[in-house]
């Protein structure tokens, strides 16, 4: 049960139930669509970029608690960041959920690290890592103006 609580922490359950930044962004300058064909989960990320700064970000879609919470936490974290910072966070997050050797990234504010850390429990559930990373990969596609659908497979 303790392991499960690592995965389903209160923060995750809360964000899963009432995701933040959920809905279409009218002022969007870019968007991308993501899909996990194995479970049918979908996500759309909307970005409003002001030069290289993420002025606003939101998402729409349906999925499990892990994927909704991940998208919710991600959008909260990325708002106001510049593109370079976003890439650093993405790289850190990817390692956090998929690499068993816990690595500490430099140049990331402690506050942000803590926010991402709540999803670290996913690492112990290899089948669920894709649920957590779909939002980030889709965000990355939006950032690069990639119009092709992002897929986990």
């Amino acid at each position, binding site marked *: 049960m303790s392991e499960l609580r690592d995965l*389903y922490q209160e923060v995750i*359950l809360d964000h899963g*139930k009432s995701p933040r930044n959920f809905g279409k962004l009218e002022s969007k300058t870019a968007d991308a669509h993501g899909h996990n064909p194995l*479970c*049918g989960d979908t996500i759309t990320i909307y970005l409003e970029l002001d030069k290289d700064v993420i002025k606003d970000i939101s998402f729409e879609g349906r*999925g499990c608690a*892990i994927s909704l919470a991940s998208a919710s936490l991600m959008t909260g974290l990325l708002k106001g960041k510049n593109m370079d910072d976003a890439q650093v966070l993405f790289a850190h997050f990817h390692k956090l959920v998929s690499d068993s050797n816990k690595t500490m990234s430099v140049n990331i504010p402690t506050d942000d690290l803590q926010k991402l850390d709540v999803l670290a429990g996913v690492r112990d559930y290899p089948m669920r890592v894709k649920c957590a990373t779909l939002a980030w990969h889709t965000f990355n596609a939006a950032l690069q103006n990639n119009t092709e659908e992002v897929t986990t497979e």
Partner: protein
Amino acid sequence: MANEISDQVNLRFNNWKSDFPLLSSNATSKKLIYLDSAASAQKPQIVIDSMKSFYESEYANIHRGVYELSEKATIAYEGARKSVSEFIGASKVEEIVFTKGATESINLVASSWGAQNLTSDDEILITTMEHHANIVPWHLLHKRTGVKIKAVNIDENGELDIDHFHQLLTKKTKLVSITQTSNALGVNTPLSEIIDTAHSLNALVLVDGCQGIVHKRVDLQQLDADFYVFSGHKLYGPSGIGVLYGKYDILESMQPYQGGGDMIVTVTTNDSTYAKPPYRFEAGTPPIASAVGLAQAIKYISNIGMEFIALHEHSLMKYASKSLQDANIVKLFSQIDDKAAIISFNFDDVHPHDVGTILDNEGIAVRAGHHCAQPTMSHFGVSGTVRASFGLYNDFNDIDALISGLHKVKEIFK
């Protein structure tokens, strides 16, 4: 009589579970409650042993060597074909084609019979409850030939809308390709009526028997399907082998699906002539040891008796339905009495994958997701469900464990 039979089922049942090493060993980190037999069944020791022993003392390629070992292997492989033929009531053993699975069986029919006989003027009827394996091959055929695909609706219980079937079935219909039992819901289709009506309009019928054949006896003489397909691994046999049954005159009219060794009569560098069915459709070295394993699986379930398995599974399905209803925490799909031991359900506000992970933590293996039946899911307006499916080795304790696992889900997602 019914009580007498269920007493016999109870008496015999104790032995069944212990026949399956994975269910009684410490192979998994927790005590395994396996409720995913509709995806693939576990294997009895006797099947595993038969393949091991075949590799240890009888293995060689078939139909080729003149030496003793090759002859032994050929006899074992062709013996397996005979077992399958008798098990499903084919009129001759040559009506049994070995494939690598039901998916390949359907693709074979689509690529060969379909491409040969169907044009853009023709129609194929499928249903909304099909597995993707009985949808996508027809889409591919549509792209090749222009043949139109129409789907018969299902109702709010997941049962086939038979009126809609009669409405869609016309002289343009050349094939009805339909499942015997929905893999996502456990619902059976009214095959007799479908086959009779289709035949009255000269349409052929392909039956996807993957889920049907594991839950009840199939007799093709009575059923009169033109094609019947199933996979070995769902029938307690090994993975990598499946069956295509086809009426012999239809198989004989069909062009090869793949070319290669063992499916020819003569080959020159310019041309080749093809062997008769079933060999025409078995290019290359087939899954020989898997055929041996499948024959053993058929022997195993035949010794138990399909009618006992069916009774046992029906009692599991009834008990599970009632327990889930009493627990009153999930919504059940397709609550009907006469269906296979497959139950789909959802929490109102918990995604199936989260349910699956929490149950996994309790050692309970269920399937969560769309079950390769996305049109069925769309019909119910969901992206997926949790599915518990039962095999001959499950018991009431497994269902009690499922219910207590679901209470844990509720507790975490309160």
